[in-house]
């Protein structure tokens, strides 16, 4: 494995972390934390069977938080020289002179530090060169465009691969570091002439070996795009709605965000103080695991060096816990759950019903495959978004639908989940099958 940050650089960064923490303490800081990241990567974009852009990614940055008692200051920079790092420390200290005492501020508890953090399988550098990536993309686009004459244009194919090195250290003598990788490929096509339609397909993985075969990507993208041709609006109605596996993870992520510590202590959540409450039907269980090999949201420790662990977030419909970092945990008087930096891999339980079976069960209603806009109010749960998808009658897809909205309140929508399908979306950090909801308001119109 050839790592994009070598041993020598790692020791340089570790020494830098130590020096900065030492220096901050010398200047009177009671606590300090340091984080650093280095990313390298390649993005190629091919369109109309030729390369359009070739981008070399090369970014780095470091950040420092200092605490003077209960006051804090933060500064960061992309300049990795020692001189710049010390200037950044000065800036953080300067800011801490002006912020106010905050009872809950400070590093995470010493007893929670992941000194013995595990080594996870998250780093699989692809090592693909630009020429190979370009050829792959060209072949994928060629195959996609050749499937049907109705494919009239293309937004092209992207191939991208990134490697990151992350280091976190603090004045509890914690220092952790790890490498991650991520590769992806997507294909976006256009069908039709007068009324063009666009759709896309993508594949993403920590290990490029797990990416879909470009041929499968091409076929799927073509199929999805062609299926959009002839889309029309429908009259307003109240019908069952099936969220396809592409949009189902987003629907449940809204709940996870509402359960985050920030939204809880700010009281800006529609799931306020909901631990112990039945937010979902009893057949819904959501399990969280930070240690999944090659997991898109796996991490050996959180962004504050805190030990992470697997747990049940929703058990038989009942909320089991929030997503807390040290600050929100202190605010709420609850234990830190190791979620500084976000949630980990989430797995939603599902029925044995396939997607086709869910269409049959729905019988007549709307299948939603794409959502638009940000019409979700996390304070109230009110939900109203632009949508496109397909009209379903007698359990079968009839025609593509666009220019409609779907609306409801997330609390009601969650209670009205009838089934979760077995067609689990594995390209998301929250893995769920498609979700059938009993009834939602659909707004649309019929053109003359």
């Amino acid at each position, binding site marked *: 494995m050839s790592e994009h940050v070598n041993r020598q650089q790692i020791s340089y960064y570790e020494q830098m972390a130590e020096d900065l923490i030492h220096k901050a303490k010398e200047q009177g800081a009671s606590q300090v934390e340091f984080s650093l990241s280095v990313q390298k990567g390649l993005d190629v974009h091919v369109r109309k069977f030729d390369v359009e852009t070739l981008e070399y990614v090369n970014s780095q940055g470091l950040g420092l938080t200092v605490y003077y008692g209960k006051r804090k200051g933060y500064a960061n920079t992309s300049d990795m020289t020692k001189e710049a790092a010390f200037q950044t420390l000065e800036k953080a200290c300067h800011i801490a002179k002006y912020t106010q005492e905050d009872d809950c501020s400070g590093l995470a508890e010493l007893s929670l530090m992941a000194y013995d953090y595990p080594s996870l399988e998250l780093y699989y550098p692809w090592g693909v060169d630009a020429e190979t990536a370009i050829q792959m993309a060209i072949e994928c686009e060629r195959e996609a465009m050749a499937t049907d004459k109705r494919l009239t244009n293309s937004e092209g194919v992207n191939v991208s691969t990134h490697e990151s090195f992350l280091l976190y250290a603090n004045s509890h003598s914690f220092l952790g570091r790890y490498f991650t990788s991520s590769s992806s490929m997507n294909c976006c096509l256009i069908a039709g002439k007068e009324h063009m*339609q666009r759709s896309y397909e993508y594949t993403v993985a920590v290990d490029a070996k797990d990416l879909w075969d470009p041929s499968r990507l091409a076929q799927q993208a073509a199929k999805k795009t062609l299926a959009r041709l002839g889309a029309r609006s429908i009259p307003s109605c109240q019908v069952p709605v099936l969220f396809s596996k592409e949009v189902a993870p987003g629907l449940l992520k809204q709940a996870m965000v509402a359960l985050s510590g920030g939204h809880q202590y700010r009281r*800006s959540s529609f799931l306020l103080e909901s631990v112990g409450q039945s937010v979902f039907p009893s057949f819904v269980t959501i399990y969280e695991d930070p240690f999944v090999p090659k997991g898109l949201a796996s991490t050996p420790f959180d962004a504050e060096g805190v030990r992470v662990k697997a747990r049940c977030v929703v058990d038989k419909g009942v909320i089991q816990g929030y997503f807390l970092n040290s600050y929100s945990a202190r605010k709420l008087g609850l234990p830190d759950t190791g979620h500084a930096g976000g949630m980990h891999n989430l797995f939603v339980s599902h029925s044995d019903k396939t997607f086709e079976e869910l269409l049959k069960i729905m019988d007549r209603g709307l299948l939603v495959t794409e959502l638009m*806009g940000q019409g979700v109010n996390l*304070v*109230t749960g009110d939900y109203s978004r632009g949508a496109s998808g397909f009209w379903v009658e007698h359990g079968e897809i009839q025609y593509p639908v666009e220019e409609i*909205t779907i609306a409801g*309140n997330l609390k009601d929508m969650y209670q009205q989940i009838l089934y979760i399908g077995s067609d689990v979306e594995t390209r998301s950090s929250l893995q769920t099958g498609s979700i059938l909801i009993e009834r939602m308001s659909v707004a649309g119109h019929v053109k003359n």
Partner: protein
Amino acid sequence: MSSLIQSVHRLLLDPLGITQSQLQKILDQMLGRQVDYADLYFQSVRHESWVLEEGIVKSGTFSLDKGVGLRAIAGEKTGFAYTDDLQLTRLEEAARAARSIAKTTGVPILHGTHPSKQLNLYPAQDPFSSLHEDEKIEILKTLDTVARQIDPRVQQVMAHLSGVYEMIFLMGSDGTLSADLRPLVRLDVQVIVESKQGREQGYMGGGGRGDYSMFLKEGLATQYAEEAVRQALVNLEAVPAPAGNMPVVLGNGWPGILLHEAIGHGLEGDFNRKGTSAFSHRLGQRVASPACTVVDDGTLPGRRGSLNVDDEGYPTQKTVLIENGILKNYMQDKLNARLMGMSQTGNGRRESYAHLPMPRMTNTYMLPGSYEKEEMIASVERGLYAVNFGGGQVDITSGKFVFSANEAYLIEKGKITKPVKGATLIGNGPEVLMHVSMVGRDLALDAGVGTCGKEGQSVPVGVGQPTLKVDGLIVGGTEH
């Protein structure tokens, strides 16, 4: 060389010990025989922000980001590399990576046109030192105090003050030599109100290219706090929004996000060169009612979306997009203008040195018409009056766009009757402006908080419009 270029040279390049002739040499090497254009974009961005929550200023942030992006263009192909390590050897490495795009093509060197006008739309000074830290904190505290005094139902006040100071220096192989110093400040307040009916939120913010002293203007902080609280309290009373196709009267100012989503993105040069926009091949055609004239104008002094030069060193301008309903122009950057045989319009923008430029909007707005707001509302039998919006999104190929109202009222029999819950509005870009039947006199621009995202890149923009009436838009409520 203008004094601005000289001073940026002194601030940005001199400390690195890099000379213009060394950069010229890198450009020459990138050009070789096969690349027809190359440029170097140096950028240094400083950013600070202060956050108040629960009555105290809890955190402050300072960041410094600098680097250089190197681009080589060969026909329709672009090679791009960047580095935040500003040693000459790293620049040379990045130059080799960027020029590797040109392996097979051979096109003559491009000679661009360089308008010499120097715009001066905002102060060149660093905004951070315009106020002492104590004064910045005082602004946030005033917001908090005022908001809490207005109504006991105010439970949370989150206020945020931020400033950016950006320095750019650009050299292109066609002789482009340009620099800019860009301040940008912003103040936001969000409140959560709570009563027996439930909880709601309200928001107000503003800013522009200038310094923090704009927030000291008599009563401004009070005005922001009052507006956020007012909005939250209105929403506490809101009833479910209607669902279906109906006439919509859009308020002036920020609701101009309609134009940004419905037509703005669809008129960006890249999509039209590729023929992927619902507006492709439609120049000269009617795309709006005769009441509509829409411009994109990067030359408004002090506005959030304004720039002296775009990120390719080209002066911004006022571009008429739609004139009396007829599509007149697209917005262009260097690459797309050249490939389409059109003129650059000063819309080549990039999030940072680590991103490629592309055609982006600046300040996009509709010119005023002749109606009064009251006339428009009175003309509606049953419909929606929407005055405040969150974000929006568009599918430029199908033309479908959405934007989400977060303050709206029901119009019944020509009168505003009651507030309704937030709802998403959806329409079709090439059609929606055809249904604009009345345009008001009251043109207003937004307060200066807009950020536009495209292909993962965010840039500050402005929008604006007079109050206008659209005869039919789909309102995504729950009430049938």
